[in-house]
């Protein structure tokens, strides 16, 4: 099962190495990691998407992360009300006549063309991973020359629903 885990960490050298190393050494499968600074100076936030077999494994991931001295807080936010976004850059083969066709495809995704060359278009799209997947699928027939994704970054919504009305958030199947 895929889970979204966030970790607040001290922004010190070696932290990323320690964390990815521990995930690798204990055979936790990382789908994506994104890291960046937060509103607090010296504190960074990491968002992982991990693929774990069961709850016991999941518990181990969070406990092992928590055990690191530079890790301040670990949360599994998969089942919370969250906003989760990823950015993808997609370079598609495109000669002149196809450009408007591709424009038509990306428009409903609120994606934008950020670079044009003689035979390619570069598209930027932001959204939940399934939306990005869908756009990639639609663009694939045109020939994807290059694809780069940032991985998911996420946090909890400002307001969490009452426990009773909380339905499992199916962001990542």
């Amino acid at each position: 099962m895929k889970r979204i885990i966030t970790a607040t960490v001290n922004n010190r050298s070696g932290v990323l190495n320690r964390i990815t190393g521990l995930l690798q050494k204990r055979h936790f499968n990382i789908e994506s990691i994104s890291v960046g600074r937060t509103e607090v100076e010296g504190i960074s936030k990491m968002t992982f998407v991990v693929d774990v077999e069961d709850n016991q494994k999941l518990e181990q991931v969070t406990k092992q992360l928590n055990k690191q001295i530079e890790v301040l807080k670990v949360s599994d936010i998969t089942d919370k009300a969250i906003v989760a976004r990823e950015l993808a850059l997609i370079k598609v083969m495109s000669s002149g006549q196809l450009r408007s066709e591709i424009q038509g495809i990306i428009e409903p995704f609120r994606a934008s063309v950020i670079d044009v060359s003689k035979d390619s278009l570069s598209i930027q799209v932001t959204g939940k991973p399934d939306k990005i997947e869908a756009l990639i699928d639609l663009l694939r027939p045109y020939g994807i020359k290059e694809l780069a994704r940032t991985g998911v970054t996420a946090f909890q919504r400002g307001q969490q629903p009452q426990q009773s009305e909380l339905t499992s958030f199916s962001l990542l199947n």
Partner: protein
Amino acid sequence: MVKTEAKPDTSTGNKTKTGADLLVESLINENVTTIFGYPGGAVLPIYDALYRAKGSFDHILNRHEQGAIHAAEGYARVSGKPGVVIATSGPGATNLVTGIADAMMDSLPLVIFTGQVARGVIGTDAFQESDVMGITTPITKHNYQVQDVRDLPRTVKEAFHIASTGRPGPVVVDIPKDISANPVEGTFDTDFHLPGYQPTTKPNPLQLKKLAEALAKAKKPVVLAGAGVLMGKASEELRSLVEHYQLPVTTTLLGLGSFPGNHKLSLGMAGMHGTYAANTAIYECDLLINIGARFDDRLTGNLEKFAPDATVAHIDIDPAEIGKNVTTHIPIVADSKVALTMLGDHIKEAPQHKEWLNRLYDNKIQYPLWYNTPDEEMVPQWLIEEVYNVTGGNAIITTDVGQHQMWAAQYYAFDQPNRWVTSGGLGTMGFGFPAALGAQLAKPNDTVVAVVGDGGFQMTLQELSILQERQLPVKVLIVNNGALGMVRQWQESFYEQRYSESLLDVQPDFVKLAEAYGIKGMKIEKQTDLVNALPDLFEYDGPVVVDCRVLQQENVYPMIAPGKGINEMIGVKR
């Protein structure tokens, strides 16, 4: 804060204080008295500062960095204080790796200072540069590279705090040469705040209540005591609790000594080479109370057959150990001493388990550890028992890994805490001998016996120099069966006796070897010779190396074969 000894001695020609002097001051502030180390290019400034601070520390110049770190582990295990190691960059640091990994697995507090090339050339593959941070990250509790000399005193303080609190472990501080060499002025703030490191020591009362209730209902309770009891200095608390409720106790390999081995309630060690009584108790129990053990695979065997009918309670200071291998019903994150003390207050009703106890006592008598004694030749099990008898069970015993380790664990009934120094988790050959000299330095008045294999001893025997130099009265007993015994045993049992590279047919003359180092050496081949020699040997106030020739074909039994359950022992006495 600065003590006078640490001040640079102007007579040596150096008037300004350096980063290395700050390090020395910090070590003095941490009450460090013994340092195990080896100099080299990147730590020259540190060794110069140590020279200026002469008299403040006893620096042991081990003859290999691996010897230094294993000695520091032995020191830490028996003293409870962090072992301190200094090594240079590159090969100095990489030679420490085995010991760091060993200390990580066995939760030993170590603070390790490695030199690093100067900041300006880090990352250029400079002479004797190695990525110490990268190499040691997965095998340390924490590690630091000092980037600013002003951080140094605080970093050292943090390192000692992290190494010795919570679940102890090794902490590496990597110090670039320019940081230790450059002059510094002023004093620096050493206050630290580690919001990401707040070990839970007090147990959750609700979970304690649950455990007390489970205990009241239990018909077949058993306590599993691990090294966490020793780390938490909770032996007394454990003893008074189990005596009060008449709870049978088994220990892990590293938990030996946490509960008296000769106590009526002791079932002995559990696990792969544990006693029948202990393993059967775990298999059949309805309540298993694990205190400070991590359910290692050498203890549990096949997990599906481990305590299948039991409610499992686990007291551990490391939350990540709870539920890692064995499903736990009553998790208690706490310091063992605090938890045991508080648990006593929660128990309202004692378990009724007379029948169970009688059965376990019966198992102890019916299926004891056993071996056959030939007429003249020595068998290793007997050898260990003789050592036990002559030392009255009071010696500190260190070992490597393998057959001799298991025999020492089985036949030297440890009645006191912190007298058993062995490489458990990592299973490191060459650990026992240097660990013994570290233990002897920590406890100068105690008898220290290094029980080592002929294979393991040859991995770190260069440390014999230290015995001679310091006249440390360590007794080195080589359990010499001319083989890598445990490898040979597994090849016999599981590889149809194909002894691939496990027989040591050619060996040095250990007596001459000892003598070459200026140490008394002896070779013993017969039982009577050992019986005659042992009392004098322990009377002798100096180091001795004894080459004890034992029968090669002896195997460690009983045994749980790999993949088998704790109820499927072979080699139990019939």
